[in-house]
C-alpha cells in the first residue's frame, strides 16, 4: 500500500481516480489545485504524486517545477487531457520538466495502476 497524493481540480475525475486507487489498496490524499498539493507535500512527503496539468491556483507544470527543486527523487505521474494549445503538448512539457511518467486522459484503470506500479519504490504493496 502506498501513500499517494492526487492533485486534480475536476471533482468527478478526482473522485473516480481516488476511488480506483483506494480500491487497489492505496492510501490517497486529495488536493484540488497545485498550491494545495505543494503544501500537502510539505506536510507529509507521499510515495507518489499524481497531478493534473491544467488547474487553478498553480498548474501542474508549475507544481512540478517547484517540487523538483526540493524533491528531485519524488515519483511524479502527470496526467492530462493532452494540452489545450495547438502549439504545446502539456505532457511533453511535463517530461522536460522532470515528470517521472506521463499518462494521457482518458486512460484505463489497468494502465493507471500499471504505471503506478512502475513508479513506486520496491516493496510497496499494491493489491486489490
Amino acid at each position: 500500500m502506498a501513500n499517494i497524493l492526487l492533485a486534480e481540480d475536476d471533482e468527478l475525475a478526482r473522485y473516480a481516480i481516488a476511488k480506483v486507487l483506494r480500491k487497489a489498496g492505496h492510501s490517497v490524499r486529495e488536493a484540488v489545485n497545485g498550491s494545495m498539493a505543494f503544501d500537502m507535500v510539505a506536510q507529509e512527503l507521499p510515495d507518489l504524486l499524481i497531478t493534473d496539468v491544467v488547474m487553478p491556483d498553480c498548474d501542474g507544470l508549475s507544481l512540478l517545477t517547484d517540487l523538483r527543486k526540493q524533491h528531485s527523487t519524488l515519483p511524479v505521474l502527470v496526467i492530462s487531457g493532452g494540452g489545450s494549445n495547438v502549439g504545446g503538448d502539456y505532457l511533453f512539457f511535463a517530461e522536460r520538466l522532470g515528470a517521472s511518467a506521463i499518462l494521457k486522459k482518458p486512460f484505463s484503470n489497468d494502465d493507471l495502476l500499471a504505471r503506478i506500479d512502475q513508479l513506486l519504490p520496491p516493496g510497496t504493496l499494491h493489491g486489490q
Partner: protein
Amino acid sequence: MNQEQGFSIIHMLGLRFWLVMTLVGVALSLGLGDILIRAEAFEVFYSLTRQHEELQLDDWAVAVFASLLTVSVLALISTFVLGKRLIKAVQEKQAVEHRLAQGQQLIAMGTMLGGVAHSINNHLTPVIALAEMMRADLPPDSDEAQDLSKIAQAAFDASGMLNRLKGLARSDNHFSGQTEIGSATTNAVDLARKVSSKAVSFRLDIQPLRDKVALSAVALEVVLINLINNAIDAMQDKPGRIGIALDHSAPPKGIPSTQPDRRFSGAWVRLQVSDNGRGMTGEEAGRMFDPFFTTKPVGKGTGLGLSETFGIIDKAGGVFDVSSSPGQGTQIGIYLPVLAPGQST
C-alpha cells in the same frame, strides 16, 4: 496622415494611381500649352527677345524652355516609377498580412479544437474509471459487465474521434507538408524582416541546402517570425543584432530526440537564431515554450508565440537546443530531421 493611411489611399486607387497621375500631368501640360497659345505668348516672347538680342536672351530663353521641358519629363517619369513602386510595396504588404492572417485563423481553429478535446478527455476519465471499476466487481460474462465494458469502450472511441479531429485541423492548417529548407529559410527570413516591428541588423549565414524537411514553407515563416519578434523584444529598444544560420548539424548528445521515424533519413539540419538581447535565466529558459508563459509586460505578449513554434517543430520531428544567460543574449538552435527520399509527410 500616417503611413498606413497613405498606403490605404494608394491601395484604393490601385494600379490606376500611376495612370491617373500620368494623365493629370499630360492634361496640365496640354492645358498650359493651350493657354500660352491663346495668349499669343510665343509671339510676345519672340518680339521681346528681338528687342534685347544683345543680351543673348535667346540663349537663356532656349535654356529655360529646355530645362522646363526636361523637368516636366523627369517629373512624369518619376511619378510613373514611384507610383509603380508604391503599388508594389502595398501589394506585397497586403499579401504578407493576408498570409499571416490565414495562418493565425487556422491556429485559432486548432487551438479551439485542442481546448474542446482537452475538456472532453477530462470528462471521459471518470466515465471510464468508474465503468471499469464496477465491471471488475461483476462476473465477467454477465450482461452488466459487458454493458459496462461497452460504456468504457464508447468513451475511448469518443476520445479517439476527438484526436482524429485535432489531427485533421493540424493537417488542414497548411503547417504540414514538406519544403526544401535552404530556399524556404531564405524566403522566410526575407518575409520576417519585412514584417519585423523594428529595424535591427541581421547577420545571415544560410547555406543553400536542398534537403527536405517535414514542414511547410508557411510553417517555417511562422517559426522565424515568432523567433525574430521575440529576439527584437528582448533587445528592449536598444540597437540589436540578430543572427540566422542554416547548416548541416545533428542535435548535441543529451537533447531528447524524436522517436525513430521511417520518414527520416538520419541526417539533420540546424536552423539557428541568435540575438544580443537581455537573455534569460535558467528558469525562464526552461519555461520559454510553455503556453501562456511570457516575460513581457502585461498586454505586450500572449505567451503563445514560442509555444506555437514548439508545436510546429515538434510535429516536424524537430528538437530545440537553447542557450541563454542574463545579459548575454540568447541562441536558439532548431534541429530538423531530413526527410528520406521519396517520403511524404
